[in-house]
C-alpha cells in the first residue's frame, strides 16, 4: 500500500496551506478530530485523483481555529460535526448550526471530561 503523508502545521498557517491545496486542484476528503489528553489533534485529508495527503493541527482544548468552509464548501458539515461532538471552537463557519447539527442529549460527548 502507498505510504501516507501527514504534515503537522501551525494553527496560523492553516488557511494559507488550504488555499494552496485548493489551487492545486485537491478536493476535501474528510476532517477528523481526536482527543489527545488535553489537546485536540485535527487532521484534514485531501485527495487529487488517487493521491492522498493529510495536514494536521495540534491545538489546546480552549483554542479557536478558523473554518476552512470558505475555501472548501463541504467542510461546513465536518466542522459542525467537530463542534457538536468535540466542542471545538470554530470561527467563520459558512453555515453554523450552533451545536444543533447532531441533536444530542449529551453535548460534546468526545470532549475530555
Amino acid at each position, binding site marked *: 500500500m502507498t505510504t501516507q503523508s501527514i504534515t503537522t502545521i501551525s494553527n496560523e498557517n492553516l488557511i494559507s496551506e488550504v488555499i494552496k491545496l485548493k489551487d492545486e486542484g485537491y478536493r476535501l476528503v474528510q476532517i477528523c478530530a481526536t482527543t489527545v489528553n488535553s489537546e485536540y489533534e485535527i487532521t484534514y485529508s485531501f485527495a487529487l485523483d488517487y493521491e492522498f495527503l493529510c495536514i494536521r493541527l495540534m491545538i489546546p482544548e480552549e483554542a479557536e481555529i478558523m473554518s476552512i468552509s470558505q475555501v472548501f464548501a463541504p467542510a461546513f458539515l465536518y466542522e459542525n460535526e467537530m463542534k457538536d461532538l468535540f466542542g471545538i471552537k470554530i470561527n467563520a463557519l459558512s453555515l453554523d448550526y450552533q451545536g444543533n447539527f447532531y*441533536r*444530542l*442529549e*449529551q453535548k460534546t*460527548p468526545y470532549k475530555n471530561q
Partner: protein
Amino acid sequence: MSFASKSPWLIHYDGSSCNGCDIEVLACLTPVYDVERFGVINTGNPKHADIFLITGGINKQNEEVVKQIYDQMPSPKVVVAVGACACNGGIFKECYNIMGGVDKVLPVDIYVSGCAARPEAIIDGVVKAVALLDEKSKSISQGR
C-alpha cells in the same frame, strides 16, 4: 368482529437501527417472503395501522417520534420490537446516545430476536401479533 386478523396493517419506524433489520422488514414485504399474502399491508399512516414494528434502539430524538406514532394508532394495537437493538439496545447498549430498547418508552408486546432479525422470525412475530390483536379486540368488545 375480528376483521383485524384477516388484514392487519402495519407501520414501521426505524429507531436508531443499523438498517440491517429495516431491510429485513422490507424484505418481508417483497417477493419470496411476501407477508402481503396474509393480508398485511405496510402503511405510512399511523391512524391506519394495527401493528407497530420498531427496529433499533431508542434515543432522546426519536423517543417523542415513536410515542407520537403510538398515540395516533387506534386501539387495539400491538407493538413489536424487531431485532436485538429494539429489544434491549443490543450491541449499541453502551453508546452514549442510546437509552436502550423500545420498552423504555412503549409497552412492547412481542420481542423478535436476532441481529439482524431474520425474515422468518419477523413473520413469526407478526403472526403472533395478529393473534394478540384478536385477543385485545375481544376484550375491548366484551368490556363495552
